[in-house]
C-alpha cells in the first residue's frame, strides 16, 4: 500500500468499514453456498466488530490516525481557551505578517534575480573614484565613447550592455497639446538577445538597430506599459510617437516578465542607445554598464583590462582640462573600475534603501521573537494547567513522543492560523510601504508577486515559529513524572524560572526596537526642523518647456499673465527649482588659478529672491537689465570661502570652464544661505546669475527650460495643487510652443529628501508600539500566572500578618529584576548594533543619555502598568479561603 493510500485511509474510515463488511459478506455467502452452517461461520469470525478493528488497524496508519485525533483535540483546547488563543494568534499574525511583508519588499528590491537567462553571470561596472574636489564616491555612470572602447576590449570575455538611467520624458502620440510622460530608457541593441528575451508582440530591436547615432528611430514598449496605456491593443505595432524632435516607431512589445534592469522602476519605453543625444559626447555620463560574463572568465583579469582601457580614455580626456587646477585633475584621475554582481539588477532605490530595509527587517524579526516568547510562555502556563492530564496520559501508556507530538500539533495549529492571517496582512502591507517610498515624480514601482519564493518563505517561517515557541513546552510536557504530578504540583519553580528568563529576553528585544525607533524618529525630526532659508509655504513650481526655445522676454510675458491670476501673490522664474538639479563649475578670483572647490550655479529672474522670501544680506536683487555673464548674487558661504573678511559687493569673480574659458561676473548682492540641492549636506557656495543669458557677441540666447515660481496666498497644500490645472492652461494659452511639463510644490521637493527617514520613523514607531504591547501582555501573563502558583504561600503570609506593601514586593520583585536585566542587556545590544546603522542617522548620537533613558523609561512604565492587575489579584487573596481549600 502506498503512503498516499495510507493517508487516504485515515480520512475515509467509514468507507473502509463498508469495504471490510462487504468482503465478510461475500465470504459468508460462499460458505453458505458450500453448505456450511451460517452460525458456525459467524462464530469462527469471532466478534465481527473486533475483526473489523483488527483489520482496520492494519490498514490505517496508526501514526496518522493519532495525528488526526491530536488535531481534533488541539482544536478543542484552543477553543476552550478562546481569548488567550485569539491573543496569541493575533500577535503572532501581526509579527509574521510584518516578516513576510519585509521579505517581499527586500526580495523584490534586492534578491530576486532578473528574469534573464544567466542572471548569475550579470555584473554592473562602476568606479570607485574621487570627485574634482577630492571626495570619494562610487559612481556607475559612463560616457558612451568610453563604454564603446571597453566593450571592444571585453569581447570574448564578456558582453557589455549600456542601459541609461530611466527618465520621465515628454512625448506625444498626436499633437503637442496632448503631451504625456513616458518612462524612457536607452539600451544597447544587443541587450535583448544577450538577456535571452523574446517579444510578446512584433520584434525586439537588435545590434543592427544600434549602429549609427541618430538613425534608428525604433522603440520597444514594455508589456506593462502596453497593458496600461494601450489596453493590450495588438495594433500598437507601427504606431509612432514624437520625443523631442524625433519620431519613433513602435516595433515590438517586450516580454511580460521583464520590467527593466532597475528594481523599483518599471520602464515603459526602450530606445536604442544610438538615439540618445549624448551618445557621441565624452563628457556626459548618462548610462550604466552591465557585463554578461562568458563562462570561465576571470573577473579580476577582466576588471584589470577594463580599468586600463578606462584610464587611457580618461587621461586623453583630462588633457583637454586646460583651465583646471592640477589638484582637481589628479583627483579626477584617481579612479578604479569595479565589477559588482548584479544578478538582481541595479537601481538607485536599491542603493538608498538596502540598509534601511535591512534594519527594518531586523526590527520585524525582533517583534516576531517577542511574540514567540509570549506564545511560548502562554503554552508553558497552559501546559502547567494540564500537568495532571499529561501525567494521566503517561500513566495509561502514552509514549514520550506521543506527548511531544500532541503539544506540537497545537503549536502548529496556532502558527498555521497566525500564518494565514499574516499572509492576508502581508498581501496588503507590502504595497502600502512601497507607496510611502514613492513620490509623484519618481514613482517607485516594484513587481511584488506572491510566488513560490514568498510562499516557501512563509512556510519556513511558520514552521520556524512553531518550533521556536512550541518545542520547549512540548519537550517539557513530555518529561512529566506521573507520580509527582498526580500527587499535585512539582517543578513549579523551574517552570517559573524559565518564564522569567524569557521575560528578560523579551524586554531586551523590546528595548532594542524602541531604542532604534527613537533614533529614527529623532533623525526625522532633526531633518524636518532644519531651517531652509526661504519660505516654501504657498510656493507652486511650474516646470515648463519650449521645445524650440523662447527668448527671456517671452518667458517674462507669461510670468505677467500668471501674476494677473487671482490669488497669485508673486511670480518669478529660474532655470530649475532649488533642490531639483545641480550645475557646478570652478571660479577664479582676481585672475588667479581656478578653485578646487566647486561653486554651484542657478539662473534666476528679477524678483526671484523676493518670491522665495530669501533674505538679502547686502547689495540688491537682479534688475531686468542684468545679464549673464555680468552680474551675480552670491550666498554667505560663497563669501566666506572666496572673499573672507572683505565686502564682496562690487568685486568680480570668474567662472572657469574646464575648457579654459572664463566669464566675468560682478557681485551685486549677498543672500542668506539656503540648501542648494540637499537639506542634509553642509551649505555649498552658490552663485545666482541672471536668467537672461548673452553670448560672446552680446546676443540674447533663447531658453528651452524654465520654472515659474508662483507664490499663492494661503498655506493649504491641497488648495495649492488644485490651482495646477488652471495655471497649466494659462501658460499654454499665453504662448504658443510653451508648455508646463511638471507641477510640484517646493514643499514636495523638500519632503522628497526625507522620504526614507519618514518611512523609518513611521514604521519604527509602529513596531515599537507593537513590541511594547506584546511585551506588556507577556509581563501581565507571567505575573498573573506566578500569583496563581503562589497563592497558597501568599495566603499564609497574609494570615501571619504580612502587609500589602510586602506582598506587592514579593510578587513583583522577581519580574522587575528581570525587566532590569533585560534593559541592561538591551542597552548593551543597542549600543553595539547602532554603530552599524550610523549612515541612517542625522545629527543623532546613539550613545546620548537621552536616547537611552527614554526607551528605558517607556519600558518601565509599560512594565508597571502590566503588573498592576497581577498585584491587585495578589492583594485580594483571602487567606481563609485559601487555607480552607487546603
Amino acid at each position, binding site marked *: *500500500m502506498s503512503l498516499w493510500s495510507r493517508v487516504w485511509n485515515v480520512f475515509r474510515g467509514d468507507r473502509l468499514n463498508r*469495504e471490510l463488511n*462487504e*468482503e*465478510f*459478506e*461475500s*465470504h459468508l*455467502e*460462499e*460458505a453458505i453456498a*458450500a453448505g456450511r452452517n451460517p452460525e458456525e*461461520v459467524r462464530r*469462527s*469470525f*469471532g466478534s465481527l466488530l473486533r*475483526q473489523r478493528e*483488527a*483489520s482496520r488497524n*492494519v*490498514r490505517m496508519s496508526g501514526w496518522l490516525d493519532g495525528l488526526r485525533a491530536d488535531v481534533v483535540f488541539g482544536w478543542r483546547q484552543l477553543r476552550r481557551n478562546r481569548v488567550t488563543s485569539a491573543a496569541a494568534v493575533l500577535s503572532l499574525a501581526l509579527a509574521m505578517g510584518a516578516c513576510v511583508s519585509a521579505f517581499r519588499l527586500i526580495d523584490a528590491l534586492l534578491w530576486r534575480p532578473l528574469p534573464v537567462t544567466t542572471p548569475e553571470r550579470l555584473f554592473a561596472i562602476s568606479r570607485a573614484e574621487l570627485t574634482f574636489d577630492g571626495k570619494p564616491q562610487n559612481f556607475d555612470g559612463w560616457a558612451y565613447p568610453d563604454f564603446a572602447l571597453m566593450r571592444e576590449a571585453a569581447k570574448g570575455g564578456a558582453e557589455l550592455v549600456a542601459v541609461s538611467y530611466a527618465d520621465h520624458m515628454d512625448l506625444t502620440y498626436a499633437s503637442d497639446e496632448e503631451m504625456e510622460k513616458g518612462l524612457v530608457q536607452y539600451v544597447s541593441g544587443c541587450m535583448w538577445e544577450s538577456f535571452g528575451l523574446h517579444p510578446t508582440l512584433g520584434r525586439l530591436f537588435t545590434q543592427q538597430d544600434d549602429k549609427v547615432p541618430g538613425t534608428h528611430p525604433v522603440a520597444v514598449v514594455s508589456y506593462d506599459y502596453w497593458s496600461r496605456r494601450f489596453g493590450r491593443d495588438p495594433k500598437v505595432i507601427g504606431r509612432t510617437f514624437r520625443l523631442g524632435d524625433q519620431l519613433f516607431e513602435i516595433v515590438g512589445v517586450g516580454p511580460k516578465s521583464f520590467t527593466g534592469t532597475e528594481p523599483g522602476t518599471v520602464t515603459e519605453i526602450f530606445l536604442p542607445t544610438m538615439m540618445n543625444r549624448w551618445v557621441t559626447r565624452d563628457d556626459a555620463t548618462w548610462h550604466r554598464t552591465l557585463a554578461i560574463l562568458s563562462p570561465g572568465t576571470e573577473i579580476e583579469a577582466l576588471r584589470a583590462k577594463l580599468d586600463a582601457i578606462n584610464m587611457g580614455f580618461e587621461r586623453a580626456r583630462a588633457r583637454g582640462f586646460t583651465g583646471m587646477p592640477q589638484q582637481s585633475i589628479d583627483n579626477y584621475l584617481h579612479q578604479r573600475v569595479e565589477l559588482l554582481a548584479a544578478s538582481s539588477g541595479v537601481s538607485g532605490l536599491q542603493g538608498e534603501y538596502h540598509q534601511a530595509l535591512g534594519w527594518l527587517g531586523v526590527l520585524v524579526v525582533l517583534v516576531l521573537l517577542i511574540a514567540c516568547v509570549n506564545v511560548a510562555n502562554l503554552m508553558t502556563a497552559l501546559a502547567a494547567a494540564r500537568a495532571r492530564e499529561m501525567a494521566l496520559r503517561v500513566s495509561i501508556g502514552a509514549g514520550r513522543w506521543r506527548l511531544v507530538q500532541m503539544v506540537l500539533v497545537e503549536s502548529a495549529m496556532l502558527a498555521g492560523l497566525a500564518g494565514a492571517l499574516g499572509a492576508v496582512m502581508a498581501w496588503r502591507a507590502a504595497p502600502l510601504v512601497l507607496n510611502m517610498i514613492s513620490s509623484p515624480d519618481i514613482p517607485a514601482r516594484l513587481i511584488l508577486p506572491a510566488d513560490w519564493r514568498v510562499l516557501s518563505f512563509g512556510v519556513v517561517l511558520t514552521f520556524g515559529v512553531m518550533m521556536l515557541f512550541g518545542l520547549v513546552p512540548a519537550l517539557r510536557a513530555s518529561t512529566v513524572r506521573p507520580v509527582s504530578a498526580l500527587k499535585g504540583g512539582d517543578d513549579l519553580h523551574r517552570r517559573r524560572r524559565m518564564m522569567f528568563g524569557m521575560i528578560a529576553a523579551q524586554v531586551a528585544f523590546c528595548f532594542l526596537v524602541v531604542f532604534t525607533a527613537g533614533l529614527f524618529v529623532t533623525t526625522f525630526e532633526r531633518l524636518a526642523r532644519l531651517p531652509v532659508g526661504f519660505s516654501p509655504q504657498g510656493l507652486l513650481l511650474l516646470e515648463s518647456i519650449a521645445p524650440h526655445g523662447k527668448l527671456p522676454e517671452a518667458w517674462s510675458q507669461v510670468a505677467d499673465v500668471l501674476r494677473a491670476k487671482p490669488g497669485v501673490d508673486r511670480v518669478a522664474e529660474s532655470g530649475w527649482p532649488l533642490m531639483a538639479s545641480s550645475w557646478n563649475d570652478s571660479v577664479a578670483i582676481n585672475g588667479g588659478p581656478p578653485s578646487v572647490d566647486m561653486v554651484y550655479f542657478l539662473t534666476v529672474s528679477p524678483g526671484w529672491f523676493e518670491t522665495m522670501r530669501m533674505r538679502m544680506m547686502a547689495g540688491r536683487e537682479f534688475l531686468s537689465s542684468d545679464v549673464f555673464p555680468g552680474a551675480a548674487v552670491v550666498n554667505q558661504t560663497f563669501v566666506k570661502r572666496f572673499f573672507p573678511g572683505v565686502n564682496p559687493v562690487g568685486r568680480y569673480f570668474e567662472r572657469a570652464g574646464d575648457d579654459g574659458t572664463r566669464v566675468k561676473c560682478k557681485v551685486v548682492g549677498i543672500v542668506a544661505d539656503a540648501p542648494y540641492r540637499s537639506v542634509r549636506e553642509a551649505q555649498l557656495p552658490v552663485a545666482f546669475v541672471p536668467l537672461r543669458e548673452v553670448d560672446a557677441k552680446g546676443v540674447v540666447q533663447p531658453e528651452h527650460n524654465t520654472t515659474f515660481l508662483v507664490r499663492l496666498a494661503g498655506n493649504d497644500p491641497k488648495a495649492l495643487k488644485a490651482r495646477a490645472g488652471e495655471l497649466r492652461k494659462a501658460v499654454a494659452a499665453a504662448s504658443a510652443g510653451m508648455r508646463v511639463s511638471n507641477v510640484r510644490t517646493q514643499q514636495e521637493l523638500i519632503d522628497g529628501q526625507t522620504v526614507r527617514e519618514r518611512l523609518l520613523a513611521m514604521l519604527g514607531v509602529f513596531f515599537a508600539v507593537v513590541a511594547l504591547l506584546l511585551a506588556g501582555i507577556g509581563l501581565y501573563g507571567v505575573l498573573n500566572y506566578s500569583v496563581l502558583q503562589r497563592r497558597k504561600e501568599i495566603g499564609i503570609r497574609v494570615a501571619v500578618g504580612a502587609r500589602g506593601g510586602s506582598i506587592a514586593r514579593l510578587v513583583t520583585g522577581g519580574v522587575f529584576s528581570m525587566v532590569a536585566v533585560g534593559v541592561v542587556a538591551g542597552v548593551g545590544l543597542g549600543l553595539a548594533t547602532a554603530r552599524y546603522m550610523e549612515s541612517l542617522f542625522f545629527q543623532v548620537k546613539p550613545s546620548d543619555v537621552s536616547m537611552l533613558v527614554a526607551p528605558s523609561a517607556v519600558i518601565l512604565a509599560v512594565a508597571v502598568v502590566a503588573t498592576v492587575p497581577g498585584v491587585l489579584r495578589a492583594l485580594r487573596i483571602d487567606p481563609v479561603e485559601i487555607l480552607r481549600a487546603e
Partner: protein
Amino acid sequence: MKKQDGLQGSLDLLVLTMLSRRPKLHGYALMMAIKEASGEVLTAEEGSLYPALHRMEEAGWIRAEWVVKESGKRARMYQLTAAGKKQLATEETRWKTVSSAINRVLREA
C-alpha cells in the same frame, strides 16, 4: 482458537504458496484451497485469515482487487506480487530450516 497455534507463522507461507499456484483467489476460496491441499488436516479460520491477508497486503506481498461475482456481489480477489514471490522463497527456506530442526530433535528423542 487454540487450533491455530500450530499454524502460527506458517499461515503466511500457506497463503503465499496457494496464491503462487492459483492466481486470483478470494478469501473463502483460499480457505478451501488450504483445507483441500492439506488433505483436510489444516484449517485456516476466518478469524486469523483475514487479518493476515490485510497485513500481507499492507506489506506489499499480495495485491487485491474487487471483482463482481455471478451473484452480483463483489468479492475481493488476491494475487501475488513480485515482492510476494520473494517473500515466499524466504518463508519456504525458513520453514525448511525449522522443520528439519524439529525433525532432528524428534529423532534424537
